């Protein structure tokens, strides 16, 4: 470690991105070796049998991800905004909401909503006969509610920082041109805030993806559920977990790639 690497790192950042440097080749070889030996030495005969179940699990996980992040984000905007610019009772409310949700594990929230609330609800007379009953008795609505609530709290915190971080001067410039409050919000505050925190939101989305397996504990058969089924039925211990990890890596890669794409559409910060 020389002085000058320190300097070079700060200046060059990621100047040379060559994948063909010798040590990379060696690393890739080691990696390939691991993969090949995993394929050879481990047991993969169960994969074809479950492939359609896995595909369905991926689809279900993605649907839950998109819906919960989408709705959660929509909720997060007012949650973040009122904390920055809202009247204090609303700001307090949003603050407590965000603190409570972020202060307790998602697993606990899922259980409270499904086993706790869900077992209290049916005891109210009339509910079983209502048109909503077919949904209330399913597990996925509870999962979705818990995920949306969770995402809205985390993203709300991100958006709070984002709104607060937009330089006041730019908002004032908007007002100085006679923009109405709504126009300032729509044209400047919101897009500017979002463009600043796209990477962070990307990170939150990955976290959400990784939180989804917990819904398997309330009987929603997501991707993780499919694999625990595989494990229970075949009694193969590690192989399903490894494949599952691989699939999650791919999904994460896709999410990260998507956010990179959006980021490239917005101007850099520096």
């Amino acid at each position, binding site marked *: 470690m020389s002085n000058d690497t320190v300097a070079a790192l700060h200046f060059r950042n990621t100047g040379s991105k060559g994948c063909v440097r010798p040590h990379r080749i060696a690393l890739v070889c080691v990696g390939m070796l691991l993969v090949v030996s995993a394929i050879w030495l481990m047991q993969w005969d169960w994969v074809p049998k479950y492939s359609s179940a896995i595909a369905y699990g991926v689809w279900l996980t993605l649907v839950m991800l998109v819906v919960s992040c989408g709705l959660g984000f929509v909720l997060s905007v007012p949650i973040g905004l009122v904390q920055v610019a809202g009247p204090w009772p609303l700001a307090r409310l949003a603050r407590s909401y965000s603190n409570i949700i972020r202060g307790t594990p998602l697993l606990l929230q899922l259980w409270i909503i499904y086993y706790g609330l869900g077992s209290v609800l049916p005891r109210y007379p009339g509910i079983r006969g209502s048109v909503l009953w077919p949904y209330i008795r399913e597990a996925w609505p509870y999962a979705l509610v818990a995920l949306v609530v969770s995402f809205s709290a985390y993203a709300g915190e991100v958006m709070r920082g984002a709104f607060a971080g937009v*330089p006041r*001067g*730019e908002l*004032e*410039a*908007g*007002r*100085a*041109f*006679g*923009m*109405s409050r709504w*126009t300032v919000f729509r*044209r*400047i505050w919101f*897009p*500017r805030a979002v*463009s600043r925190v796209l990477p962070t939101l990307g990170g939150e989305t990955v976290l959400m993806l990784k939180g989804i397996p917990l819904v398997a504990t309330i009987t929603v058969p997501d991707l993780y559920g499919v694999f625990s089924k595989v494990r229970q039925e075949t009694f193969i211990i590690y192989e399903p977990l490894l494949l599952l990890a691989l699939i999650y890596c791919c999904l994460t890669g896709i999410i990260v790639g998507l956010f990179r794409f959006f980021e490239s559409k*917005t*101007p*850099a*910060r*520096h």
Partner: protein
Amino acid sequence: MNDKTDAIQVSEIRKSFGSIEVLKGISLSAREGDVVAVIGGSGSGKSTLLRCINMLELPNSGSVTIQGETIAMQDDGAGGIVPADRKQIERMRSRLAMVFQSFNLWQHMTVLENVIEAPIHVLGVKRDEAIFRAEELLRRVGLYEKRASYPAYLSGGQQQRAAIARALAVKPYAMLFDEPTSALDPELVGEVLMVIGDLVKEKRTMILVTHEMKFARNVASHVVFLANGNIVEQGPPEQIFEAPETDQLKRFISSIH
């Protein structure tokens, strides 16, 4: 000179932050085509005055009249005043264009988008037309080549020129400049002053806070010297710079080079 109407009239503006009174009853008027230069030490309240004129800062008392129309204010019930009609304020502001010391360009828009934003979304100009005019303005301030760049990639001087183009795009009735060159490298000051000099030749009404005394002297039709929230002296530039009356102004002028 008396046949010109008052473009901007500020009367008895007072403004406190907490217990500190920053403006202690300032009155000021600029007729059409006037260039009023506001000078004064750091912290004397120059920026605050400018910001009170377009109500980015609400004065505690006093009134502002633009082009004969007084901004309606009402008591806020706590000893201060608040605008009575937000729509009026928005309309007024769209007639005054402000150029900030720190540019305040919208970082998420290209230079061109910055310039067409207010015409389209405030004045309701059609997009094509706004672009046409914006390109003309950018050519004029020498930024046509940079129209597709984001502000972060421009030098300070270029950013300031973009901010001026953005201000001009709303065809403002009057312009407010807050130290348009103080955030710039000495080498970039020149180009911005040149652009402002052009505007002066066009006889645009302007209120200009500046540290560049030489420039103020050359372009201003009227100079106002602010100290401790009061107008200590005002008059034509020759008088202010060559025959300062008060000690305060004399000290101030000698301290600047």
